[in-house]
């Protein structure tokens, strides 16, 4: 009768929670999404391995969409502001997020970054995520679409090795196509086949930031999203 005598007896009870562990990040991502919707900003989460050509792709995108769309970027790296600097030189207002040891960007980092520049005057905001094919895939940032850059030099079985990243991609950009003639063991058909085994409805555009091949189709894909 501990409720009356105050002896401090306890009992062990099960509590059913059944909630996503990342529910806090999901809430913040929903909030970011509301910001983007309110300001008419198309937010794209651009992911890929280190060196897949994400920054070069955005530089080429800026050239293709000059005068048509106002672009902005948030660029994440463990250290240095190099990518954001490159993007600013390409005419894309950009800020860098240095994550220290964190291997991905999360929704709170993006929200914090949104407080600085006037993002509401941007039509399309690219979040250039930390180069990594694992961790960034599971953090919703509030983006409309996930785009994954995969370079031809990474090998045809990359999608099979990192299925989660590709399963969550709305579009895969096959980059560095200008190098394809130098790669005997790589074919676009084999990459397309690997994608179909991890993406139910694979969409891929082959591009070269260097020659500009495919960049028009990619720009068209972006413009079709509004």
């Amino acid at each position, binding site marked *: 009768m*501990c409720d009356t005598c105050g002896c401090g007896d306890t*009992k062990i*009870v*099960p*509590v059913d*929670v059944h909630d996503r562990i990342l529910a806090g990040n999901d809430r913040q991502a929903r909030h970011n999404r509301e910001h983007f919707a309110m300001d008419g900003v198309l937010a794209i989460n651009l992911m890929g391995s280190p060196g897949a050509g994400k920054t070069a792709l955005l530089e080429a995108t800026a050239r293709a969409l000059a005068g048509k769309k106002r672009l902005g970027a948030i660029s994440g790296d463990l250290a240095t502001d190099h990518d954001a600097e490159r993007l600013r030189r390409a005419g894309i207002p950009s800020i860098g997020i240095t994550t220290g040891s964190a291997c991905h960007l999360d929704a709170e980092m993006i929200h914090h970054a949104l407080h600085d520049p006037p993002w509401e005057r941007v039509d399309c905001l690219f979040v250039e995520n930390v180069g990594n094919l694992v961790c960034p895939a599971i953090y919703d940032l509030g983006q409309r679409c996930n785009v994954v850059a995969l370079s031809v030099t990474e090998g045809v079985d990359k999608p099979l090795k990192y299925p*989660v990243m590709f399963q969550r991609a709305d579009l895969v950009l096959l980059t560095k196509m200008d190098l394809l003639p130098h790669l005997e063991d790589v074919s676009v058909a084999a990459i397309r086949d690997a994608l179909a*085994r*991890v993406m*139910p409805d694979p969409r891929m555009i082959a591009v070269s930031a260097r020659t500009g091949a495919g960049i028009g189709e990619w720009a068209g894909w972006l413009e079709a999203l509004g």
Partner: protein
Amino acid sequence: MHEYSIVQSLIERVEHEAVARGAKRVVRLWVRLGELSGVEPDLLATAYDTFREHTICEGAPMELDRIAAAWACSRCGGELPSNVTDALRCPRCHAPATLVAGDEILLSRIEMEVPDV
């Protein structure tokens, strides 16, 4: 190694539930992890054992329930064979498949010691 940041969110969530119920300690917790969640079970277990020291979870082992990936047709709803290694399309109507299980990162249950009132 996002497993460490997941453990941080997990412990915060458990603390929140424990405080809300006036729990004296947490005894055990259950986590459901999908095959395609992007979280490695062994790394999560290591991260949990490292970070639970000096938290409310210190004496609470974590039970991991692993959930296999399951796909169903987006048109007819029929389930795809569980060992699908081919294109992720329905073998009958060829429509793209939808993931119906296997992306879970869930805190499903906490066992805690509360005042007997």
